[in-house]
């Protein structure tokens, strides 16, 4: 068995809610007085049984997290916003200390919560490589040795001696990641925010992380992105409300995680004569199929919506099917009719199949609900509501920014200048 390199034991962390002001000062004084008189500090008492994260003015961001990591493992940390991921990351990076519990680590630890930490806008790219490298814990001699590689990796040789305030944000990210990629840690702690930049550079980043992993180094990877978790991690830790909800092999945990949080029914079938419809035509099955093997829906993959129906009475071509896609808050995102792209043909009796393909880069990272409307003689025949509903996740990120784009859809539009 590989040796243990990270061991977290019953780690807890509480934060004070609200603004620090006079009350905080009084509180502090009271706590100090209490300790002086030999009383335990009330705020440090956590009622685990009640399951409440909030105790008075105190918020328990982590409530007893334990895990172990052996050399060469790549652990993904999943969880929704507020699950405690960032807090755990901060503790592992030694930026803040736990309220109780201990984390032990072996070997050189590098943590990347941001690229280009400590960049000074007035200094040149070259000067910033040294500064950033030293901030991340590299020795000067080490940076000098790797300087050529770092510069080559960044691909911005020509701007190296101009101040980085004249760099584009993309160039800064490149420079920052190039330094980070040459850290050579034994344990690497990464926030997914790192995977930024244009698509090509992103691939380079993920590639270099995979190299680190293949080189027997240990990685702890925090992410919302199922695709990168699935491609990088061997094991996943799922945090919920400050506690470990599940820990295990990636496939298993990701599947359970998606099932829990996405309320998805990407798939519905009915017995013959039981489905929604009329005596003329009824639905038999509706399913959404993702381009991903794992079955998760992402913004960068097409979604194929398959509709199966039983046709009992229609012998002409006069039947139209409309797919109506709504967002989680029930606004119509868009609709599409079968007649719009498929030529009108005679309907065969019995079991019929049609499919609608929603291209990649149209859906946003959002919850979507699907309605299906049948038309005959230009009038609504029947409407099947909420036949499907699922979450679409952020795919590989495009552009240099890490921002959630508002909007019901997020088509890839073309910009020119």
């Amino acid at each position, binding site marked *: 068995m590989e040796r243990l390199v990270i061991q977290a*034991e019953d780690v807890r962390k509480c934060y004070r809610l609200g603004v620090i002001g006079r009350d905080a000062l009084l509180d502090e004084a009271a706590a100090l007085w209490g300790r002086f008189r030999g009383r335990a500090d009330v705020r440090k008492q956590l009622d685990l049984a009640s399951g409440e994260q909030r105790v008075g003015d105190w918020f328990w961001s982590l409530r007893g997290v334990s895990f172990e990591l052996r050399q060469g493992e790549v652990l993904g940390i999943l969880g929704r916003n507020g699950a405690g991921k960032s807090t755990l990351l901060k503790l592992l990076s030694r930026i803040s*200390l736990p309220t109780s*519990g*201990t984390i*032990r680590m072996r070997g050189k*630890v590098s943590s990347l919560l941001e690229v280009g930490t400590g960049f000074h806008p007035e*200094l040149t790219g070259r000067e910033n490589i040294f500064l950033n490298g030293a901030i991340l814990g590299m020795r000067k001699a080490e940076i000098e040795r790797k300087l050529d590689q770092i510069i080559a990796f960044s691909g911005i040789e020509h701007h190296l001696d101009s101040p980085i305030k004249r760099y584009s944000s993309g160039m800064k990210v490149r420079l920052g990641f190039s330094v980070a990629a040459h850290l050579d840690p034994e344990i690497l702690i990464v926030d997914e925010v790192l995977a930024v930049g244009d698509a090509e550079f992103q691939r380079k980043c993920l590639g270099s992380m995979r190299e680190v992993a293949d080189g027997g180094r240990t990685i702890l990877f925090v992410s919302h992105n199922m695709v990168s978790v699935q491609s990088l991690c061997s094991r996943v830790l799922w945090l919920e409300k400050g506690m470990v909800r599940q820990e295990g092999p990636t496939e298993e945990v990701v599947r359970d995680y998606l099932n829990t949080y996405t309320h998805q029914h990407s798939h519905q079938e009915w017995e013959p004569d039981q489905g929604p419809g009329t005596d003329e035509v009824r639905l038999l099955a509706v399913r959404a199929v993702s381009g991903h093997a794992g079955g998760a829906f992402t913004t960068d993959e097409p979604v194929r919506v398959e509709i199966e129906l039983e046709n009992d009475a229609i012998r002409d071509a006069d039947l139209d099917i409309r797919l109506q896609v709504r967002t989680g808050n029930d606004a119509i995102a868009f609709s599409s009719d079968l007649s719009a792209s498929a030529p009108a043909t005679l309907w065969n009796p019995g079991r019929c199949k049609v499919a609608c393909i929603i291209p990649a880069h149209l859906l946003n990272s959002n919850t979507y609900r699907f309605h299906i409307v049948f038309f005959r003689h230009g009038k609504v025949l029947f409407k099947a509501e909420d036949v499907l509903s699922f979450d679409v996740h952020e795919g590989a990120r495009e552009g240099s920014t890490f921002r959630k784009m508002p909007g019901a859809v997020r088509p890839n539009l073309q910009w020119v200048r």
Partner: protein
Amino acid sequence: MRAEAASGAQQREGWDVVVSPDRPWWRIDVRELWQYRDLLLLLVRRDLLAVYKQTLLGPAWQILQPLLTSIMFAVVFGIMARMSLPGIPPLLFYMSAVVPWGFFNGVVTRTSQTLVWNAALMTKVYFPRLVAPLATTLSTGFNFLVQVAAFLLFAVFYAATGRFAWGIGAEAVLLPVLVLLLVLLAFGIGLLVAALSTRYRDLSFLIGFAMQLLMYISPVIFPLSRVEEGSALRLLLELNPITPLIEGFRAAFFGLPMEWGSLAYTAGVAAVVLAIGLMLFQRVERSFADVV
């Protein structure tokens, strides 16, 4: 999980990094600081390089700043109010105090702001937090040395042109000791204010006024000998731990008698302030990322 942890007990020794709330805040990890010496030097370099990029005169400001202040003091207090010592050109008299005072003021002010100024850095990456105030102190110290050199050049010029019979005394050997005391005292006060102002930002506004006040109850503008013995002002001046340092610098530069007793008092105050400052800083540094 638990059972596994127990089976790994034999491996438990030899952890390189232990993150736990029980870290003693009174102990300074000198070994770790030493490991980060390159960062310290690069931060000093950054401070020195970055400030003067895009200024026309660049590093010349380092000399112009105290020079202009000294000229102002020399005209207002020296020539008009006749407060300086006879036999010493007013410009030199004021420069000999403005330069060390500027250093003291700079170290206190900049050290007290290091946590807030470096917040963006400190919430994203770990390094021994003491590195940041040490770096600003070193870069301020570098500027101070340049200013001292400039002062000596002026003194040599005055002496060479026969306007000043300069008798730099044996006391000049003590200059490094005076500088060290000044730095330790300023660093201690700065750390103290830094620690307290993370919680209560009001302090960062107050510090500017406090430093001004402190200058007026120190012998920057007038020599201590001009203040009547036994007066309230004299008492205030003597209680101020900076007074012996300013007087000491003048004594060293101009060959005047050195007050040993008062220097010992300053050394004592500096030691206490530094110890408390370091402790509080280490105490606050742990929760800093949660508060900011």
